[in-house]
């Protein structure tokens, strides 16, 4: 049986890839996808821990996380759409209206 730390390391790696995605890509949607990836990484660790601890709580949390992710996706994409409609671009580094 694969030790729990392997699962945690895998979820850590996925989580970091997500974080790198947020930082590297200019396109807001890709950033958003990277965030989804991070959430999935966390779901993975939840399930692994649930399995390890033998309690169902972990799995239920994943359920709720999915719900939250869905809600976020809806609102996030609506915002991205609104921004696109006003500024014709959704590249993160061009959205610098407010600074200093």
């Amino acid at each position: 049986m694969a030790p729990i730390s392997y699962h945690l390391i895998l979820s850590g790696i996925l989580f970091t890839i997500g974080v790198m995605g947020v930082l590297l890509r200019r396109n807001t949607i890709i950033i958003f996808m990277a965030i989804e990836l991070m959430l999935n990484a966390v779901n993975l660790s939840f399930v692994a821990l649930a399995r390890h601890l033998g309690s169902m709580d972990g799995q239920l949390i994943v359920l709720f996380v999915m719900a939250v992710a869905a809600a976020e996706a809806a609102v996030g994409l609506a915002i991205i759409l609104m921004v696109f409609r006003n500024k014709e671009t959704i590249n993160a580094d061009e959205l610098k209206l407010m600074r200093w």
Partner: protein
Amino acid sequence: MIKLPPVNWLSLLPAIIPAFTGILVLCWDLGMKNEERHRLAWLGILGLAITAVVSFCLLGRNEPAFNGSYTLDSYAMFFNLIFCLAGILTFLMSIQYLHTSDIHAGEYYALILFAIVGMVVMAAATDLVNIFLGLETMSIAVYVLAGIWRQRLQSNEAALKYFLLGAFASGFLLYGIALLYGATGSIQLGKIAMHVNEHGASTILLIGVAMLIVGFGFKVAAAPFHVWTPDVYEGAPTTITAFMAVGVKAAAFAAFARVFLHTLGGIHGQWEGILWVLAVLTMTVGNITALVQNNVKRMLAYSSIAHAGYLLVAMVAGKELGGAALMYYLVAYGLMNLGAFGVIIAVGRRGEPNEEFADFAGLGFRYPLLALAMTVFMLSLTGIPPLVGFVGKFYIFSAAVKAGYLWLAVIGVLNSVISAYYYIRVIVSMYMHEGDKVPEKLSARPALAVAILIAAVGTIWLGVFPSASMALSRLSFLALG
């Protein structure tokens, strides 16, 4: 067959009322003509008022409900009072604000009410999942609210930035929750506390705590994670900025304090060093950057970061006095900031927002009352006695000194001197510069006047006679157990 668990309706009441009012507002909004939109606001205020009364009555009782995942204790009720205060004042300010900006009144008020539901849940949750869900409810509502003034580009950009970073941070928070769950085997704060007190901190737990600090750090606008605050506060509509600055920060601190001071109190030694550094960094960054701002709203954003720093000092001061100081300071901070934002709205004219220092020029002697209110807020934010800001700072610094963090108190005190400079700059421009910008007569906007009046009276009254409210905050923190 699944038997329903015993439902403790009382503990849910403060959450149900605003939700119900929100839904009512949404429905009533359908059949309403444009100009009576302000009635929706009064409905919202009514709902919040009822919630406040209910919370006040429930103040004394301490009953864990839903076998440990939710609770009805005076700690939560105290925070409910803050949320209702913030909500009511935001509503009062919004009535006028919505005239000058084409925001859909119905959804606007409903979303604020739903955000308050999220906050109430966050404050009362004794279970990591509930905290997370309360936080997400509140955040999503506020992401939308930040972007609700669709015509203004700043508002769109603010919403986008807030959303992206919010989601990013809740990713960390969730990861922290997962690790905590993994380390202690349960997500209920009570069980985690027992586990931590017995077994101390394992590595996974520590990483989890670190991730939690990052997650909460973002929400509370602590130093390295504060970068979103100025842009979002400046971009969002002013009423929402006020709501965010007070309500969202209070809710975040409610959960932050419950998790760290109560549950992870056992391993105070481990995370107190980090918070110490965060507190110093937040105060200093907030104050120093605020020095060079020339937009009052953005300056207030940095000042709210600085005040988050002071609140972190209370967190570091820990159990005996820190928690009570934190709660009292949140009340004080709420009053002052809501008032200050109210005045900024009052100064703004039709449509184009003017929050530069120059717009305040010469206000002192043309609109004495408005200027007097702003002076009271600025002096209170600096921490000049006999106003509530001073009593709050006094409470926090005495907690820090009592807990032995002398240097933290000294740094805090020096920071408030730096803060004095940029707060006084507002007074300077009001009283000592000549100017011709003529804001609308205050009397033409009763609701806004009432909001500013409530905030000002609160700032002065709690400053001069603070003993009652201080005792209340101390008792309600003790209720945390």
